[in-house]
């Protein structure tokens, strides 16, 4: 096949100028686009206002679809569970038997805890929860891992607030619009979370890899203290996340680096909880008292800012 008809305008002056002008516009526009990206290097959330339109426009559609397909997302799990159903059933039954005793023990411990706390006159006032909402969409074609939350500024969501599910940490709020918010997922390559090993508090830093896994680097010098199966929880350092939110389980070790998988899968969880920043929660005193701007620096945990 010969090439398509040439777009050269021939001797028509007007057409020549029009074609030339279209290239000038295109080149200028491309340069402006590049400039916008350069601005975003210094201020990544600067043009968040531009996104409001699409985020708000697509919200009703996303919510409706989410309500329709919430069962479909787990269909692979349902199918996979038929595989080796028999042996799995036996194993699970044994597990349940073993767990039953543990649960009874845990209940006793919880009772004891309650009693001891009363003795210490510690009143559990957990005012950290802000609201519960659902994740309705995500940046599935981009390398950034952002999910859209069905609640925004008008519901009190602010950038920086941690987001969690019952199973574990999901991420934190990145950008807010009036009715939606973008959640920077735990697996985003720019999301860094201070964690510790659950049983002996070995501190580490978790960074997303963008493909659903996390890179865990221990803060201690020397050889890698982690081994597959270790459970990681947030340490509360830095003042964003509450301590002791489950984060990930380690699956693979490679030299200095450990690789983990998040415990909460954002595509499977039904609803997520937006919490206030940890620092805000622990430094909040009398709501009537004027808030000093320096309130953030003297958190009782004594943690230095990151």
């Amino acid at each position, binding site marked *: 096949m010969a090439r398509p008809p*040439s*777009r050269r305008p021939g001797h028509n002056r007007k057409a020549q100028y029009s074609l030339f002008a*279209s290239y000038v516009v295109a080149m200028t526009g491309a340069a402006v686009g590049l400039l916008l990206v350069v601005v975003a290097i210094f201020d990544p959330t600067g043009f968040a206002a531009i996104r409001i339109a699409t985020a708000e426009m697509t919200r009703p559609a996303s919510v409706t679809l989410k309500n329709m*397909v919430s069962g479909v997302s787990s269909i692979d799990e349902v199918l996979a569970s038929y595989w080796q159903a028999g042996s799995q059933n036996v194993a699970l039954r044994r597990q349940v038997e073993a767990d039953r005793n543990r649960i009874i023990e845990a209940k006793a411990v919880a009772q004891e805890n309650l009693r001891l706390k009363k003795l210490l006159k510690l009143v559990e006032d957990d005012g950290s929860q802000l609201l519960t909402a659902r994740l309705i*969409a995500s940046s*599935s074609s981009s390398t950034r891992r952002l999910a859209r939350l069905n609640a925004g500024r008008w519901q009190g969501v602010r950038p920086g607030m941690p987001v969690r599910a019952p199973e574990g940490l999901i991420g934190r709020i990145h950008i807010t619009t009036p009715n939606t918010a973008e959640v920077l997922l735990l697996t985003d390559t720019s999301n860094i979370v201070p964690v510790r090993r659950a049983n002996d508090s070995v501190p580490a830093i978790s960074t997303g890899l963008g493909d659903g896994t996390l890179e865990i680097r221990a803060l201690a010098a020397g050889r890698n203290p982690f081994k597959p199966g270790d459970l990681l929880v947030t340490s509360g350092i830095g003042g964003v996340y509450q301590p002791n939110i489950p984060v990930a389980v380690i699956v693979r070790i490679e030299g200095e680096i450990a690789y983990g998988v998040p415990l909460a899968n954002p595509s499977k969880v039904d609803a997520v909880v937006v919490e206030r920043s940890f620092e805000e929660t622990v430094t909040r005193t009398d709501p009537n008292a004027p808030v000093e701007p320096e309130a953030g620096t003297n958190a009782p945990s004594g943690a230095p800012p990151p």
Partner: protein
Amino acid sequence: MIDSHFQHVPRLGRHPSRLRLTGTPVITVMLGSIVTALPVIAQSPVMPPFGLLLLLTWRLLRPELWRAWIGLPLGLFDDMASGQPIGSAMFLWTVTLIAIDAVESRMVWRSYRQDWLIATAAIIFCIAGGVFFARITGGGDVKLILVAPQMLWTVLLFPFVVRQCARIDRWRVMA
């Protein structure tokens, strides 16, 4: 329509409306961009960039339809929907369209395979450029291998999208 002599023959003297002729391609590309509004919470970049695919398809199917600046508004809309930094698709799409114009004036023989080749180069350029822009705007250390599967099935999806686009195009020009 840019070329006034490139007239489609309408059925029995009826002309398709102007909105249908010029609006359909734009609307399909925009719909492709907001596929990200589907309630899929992806753990890695798996979704093919449908907006880009449709833009390339329309450009290669109907070279006379758009001038290169169409990449600016459509790219801006894609940036707003995709989660990439604003300006990323604006730049990449416009540069791609200018490059296709340049290549087209040099190629002597053209067939469907050359179109696919051009689209492959454009898809690889745009996805890799998107990764680069995401990396320099605070995205952390994103590796290119992460988007390799996305590139692969975007390229493989191109023929299918061309077919569907041609079907829409037939409806578009026939009143």
